[in-house]
């Protein structure tokens, strides 16, 4: 069995997590394959929650599969699709089935997804969601009612170190830290200096929280331009786009892996933060290649 993520965060020098994207449909064989491939190579497996507002198999369902297969799931919960009753109910269910890590996120807007006419919820925001988990952790629900059998989640959240302007974003991070989180998983970072600036800020408020830098490999200049335009919170610098553009035809994936591994190595060697979270969406099978190239396998 995998070690509880909370223990890992406390004891391991360099924490590595990855992501398993839920499938579109009820055929979970691909997800099971990815779980099998990654569960012993990383410390935790995040499962996205209707990522990019695209309807998929639920995060909770894949988390259960990870648990069944001996991995350590991180249950991503966004505020977009569920009100406070539904979120609390899902958290109780998750915990009762052995899922004990939650990542609290706002969630992308409905407008970026594949059900653009749906009603978006946002009954809570991500800071309120963190408070909610603490409330449940204390044995009560949000209305103040006693729970018969509480929960004890290890709580994570996200941040965007390359936001522009940065200050409003940092105020939000400060609120999340004050609400109390065990770890922060950043949005994709491509500039070490931005990450350093961010960790310095976080450390000035909270010396204990673990920071995992978000790594999203980019496998081509066109993809980079597309992501800059269409993926919320992603800012890929021009020098990386140029580097990708210069890669010979057919070597995009290898180049993307090389760049990602280079970043991970630098983060580890310079001890910029406590680990990395690798999001290679749709190419989960390539994550071990990144780990190898970064000297983590």
């Amino acid at each position: 069995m995998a070690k509880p993520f909370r223990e890992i965060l406390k004891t391991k020098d360099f924490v590595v997590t990855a992501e398993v994207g839920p499938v579109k449909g009820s055929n979970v064989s691909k997800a099971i394959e990815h779980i099998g491939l990654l569960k012993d190579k990383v410390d935790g497996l995040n499962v996205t929650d209707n990522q990019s507002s695209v309807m998929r198999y639920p995060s909770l369902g894949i988390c259960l599969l990870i648990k069944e297969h001996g991995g350590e799931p991180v249950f991503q919960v966004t505020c977009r699709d569920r009100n406070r009753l539904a979120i609390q109910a899902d958290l109780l269910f998750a915990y009762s089935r052995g899922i004990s890590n939650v990542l609290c996120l706002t969630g992308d807007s409905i407008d970026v997804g594949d059900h653009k006419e749906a009603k978006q919820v946002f009954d809570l925001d991500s800071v309120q969601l963190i408070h909610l988990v603490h409330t449940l952790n204390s044995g009560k629900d949000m209305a103040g009612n006693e729970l018969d059998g509480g929960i004890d989640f290890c709580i994570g959240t996200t941040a965007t170190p390359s936001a522009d302007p940065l200050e409003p974003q940092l105020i939000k991070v400060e609120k999340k830290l004050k609400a109390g989180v065990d770890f922060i998983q950043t949005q994709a970072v491509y500039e070490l200096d931005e990450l350093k600036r961010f960790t310095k800020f976080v450390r000035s408020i909270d010396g204990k929280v673990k920071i995992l830098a978000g790594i999203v490999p980019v496998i081509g200049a066109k993809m980079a331009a597309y992501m800059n335009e269409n993926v919320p919170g992603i800012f890929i610098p021009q020098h990386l786009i140029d580097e990708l553009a210069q890669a010979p035809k057919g070597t995009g994936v290898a180049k993307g892996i090389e760049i990602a591994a280079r970043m991970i190595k630098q983060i580890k060697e310079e001890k910029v933060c406590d680990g990395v979270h690798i999001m290679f969406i749709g190419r989960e099978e390539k994550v071990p290649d990144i780990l190898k190239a970064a000297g983590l396998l």
Partner: protein
Amino acid sequence: MIIAERKPMEEIKQLIAPYKKVLVAGCETCVAVCWAGGEKEVGILASQLRLARSAERSEISVLEATVERQCEREMVAEIKDKVAGAEAVISLACGSGVQTMAEMFEDKPVFPGVNTTFIGMPEKEGLWVEMCGACGDCFLDRTGGVCPIVRCAKGLLNGPCGGTRKGGKCEIDPEKDCAWVLIYRRLEKQGRLDLMRKYYPPKNARAVKRPGKVQAAKA
């Protein structure tokens, strides 16, 4: 004020297809200011309907009437004779006006001729923007007078989401400002950023119990 947009001509034509005598009823208050349903727009729609029917060689008589406020019974009563002379009514008022008409003339079909969109203000000539979500629990004192309920695409209360675009634009529209960047700049200017650092618990989504009702305090 309440902002509305006229429904597409095709939709209005469909609504009144079975009728030969129709009243187009306008409102001179909010919808007149946003160019959707005042006296002028009543005249335009009436002409368009006459032309459309004439092109189809189908007979129609279109009556016109506009009241000061279609959401007030006393004012709507002023046009009761015109309503009586029509088989159906197309109201160019907001949803509140349409319902006032429908309630007062229960035996008559009253159709909406506009889509009521939001409470807002004119930003420039011919452009109106949303400003208020009528949430029943005003938050503007904490945000430098910028409403995060409707001006943030997600209605967030504790700061921006992670999707803010470069330059402080909204995740869903590069043309729109991120409300939380606006709030930050306003509060910074006033030296009141401490307000943004405060934690705000979830909003009472039932501050207005639907359907809403407000009773004036007794003097």
